[in-house]
């Protein structure tokens, strides 16, 4: 059984949703993969099924999963692309301006940082 720590900040259904999103971004859940049933998740994580349904419903509202009648929930074809797009957008809007500002303040050269031949350019 997986040990799960819920934190006190956000509602549980949102934390569960974030967990599924993280699994999609990490490639653990891929388009076309089935999600475990509400019942399984509820039993495994000791959550009431209404909480689990709510998390799944939000994922469906975001078009990251879809219900296939009689079969359950599946990751949509476009889920990874959709998540990547929104994560990129968030990075460029929130994180990049701060990174850029720091690079400039420290007098670093972005070209050198990204040059594959320099020791900083290796990802």
């Amino acid at each position, binding site marked *: *059984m997986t040990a799960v720590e*819920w934190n*006190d*900040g956000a*509602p*549980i*259904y949102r934390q569960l949703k974030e967990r599924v999103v993280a699994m999609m971004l990490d490639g653990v859940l891929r388009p076309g993969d089935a999600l475990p049933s509400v*019942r*399984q998740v*509820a*039993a*495994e*994580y*000791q*959550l*009431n*099924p*209404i*909480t689990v*349904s*709510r998390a799944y*419903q939000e994922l469906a509202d975001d078009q990251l999963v879809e219900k296939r009648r009689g079969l359950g929930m599946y990751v949509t074809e476009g889920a990874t692309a959709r998540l990547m797009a929104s994560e990129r957008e968030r990075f460029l809007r929130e994180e990049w301006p701060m990174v850029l500002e720091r690079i400039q303040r420290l007098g670093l050269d972005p070209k050198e940082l990204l040059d594959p031949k320099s020791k900083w350019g290796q990802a």
Partner: protein
Amino acid sequence: MNTEIRNGSPVVVARGLRKAYKNKLALDDTRFEVPLGRIVGLIGPNGAGKTTALKAILGLVPFEGDLKVLGKDPRTQRDELMNDICFIADVAVLPRWMKVKEAIAFVAGVHPRFDEAKCRRFLEGTQLKPDLRVREMSKGMIVQLHLALVMAIDARLLVLDEPTLGLDILYRKQFYQRLLEDYFDEEKTILVTTHQVEEIEHILTDVMFIRDGKIMLDAPMDTLGERYTEVLVNADRVEAARALKPVDERALPFGKTVMLFDGADAARLGELGETRTPGLADLFVATMKGTYA
């Protein structure tokens, strides 16, 4: 979906319940409702009236007031009601000489909605072999058998009174896991009392706190986070914080004070110190303060 279920006709409606033992009121003008398709926790300190409330619902004690369970009065329609209700008490009563297979045959004989095959399926993979006697079982195994018997009955209301008392953590976890995986659905309702608040807090959809026979809190679990906030108040903000009327306050070492607020403005609380959503156990302790004083 939440509201839809809550709006369905309630499984239990209690109004003005009153029950006095010798010199103590166990139910004191008690009123509550248990909606359909929910898992409701009835939580209170020892002697608060929990078991009396459950016994009233099951028609096991006389009381005054208005009580409808699945539309029936447990005082006068108990026999009909018992087809739709199941019950597990902390004092699990199974005769010590009885074998597993005899227990199954017995329930099959007395309960019209018992599914024998289902019960055997629940026991597959456990140590509860057909010829094992109750006297040879641990407390955990007895509860396991009890649960298998009860879950195989297609009842609409399941009442659990301290079902996991005295069980180790493995059995406790397994108990609720089975219940969620093999039993509960939106047509069923579970009413459970327990002291192990932290363990079931995420399983519950609704919670009721009872004290001295009165319901002190009755709310869906998902509204508690919006309603209650705990603030770690800095020493210099204590007076400002008190002005917002906390429902509870306790001092910590190193000059900080933890205050609990009910329905206060989140932005204003944020100015007082670090905030967090209290757990059910924190709310319970704050609500029951002074109970044993």
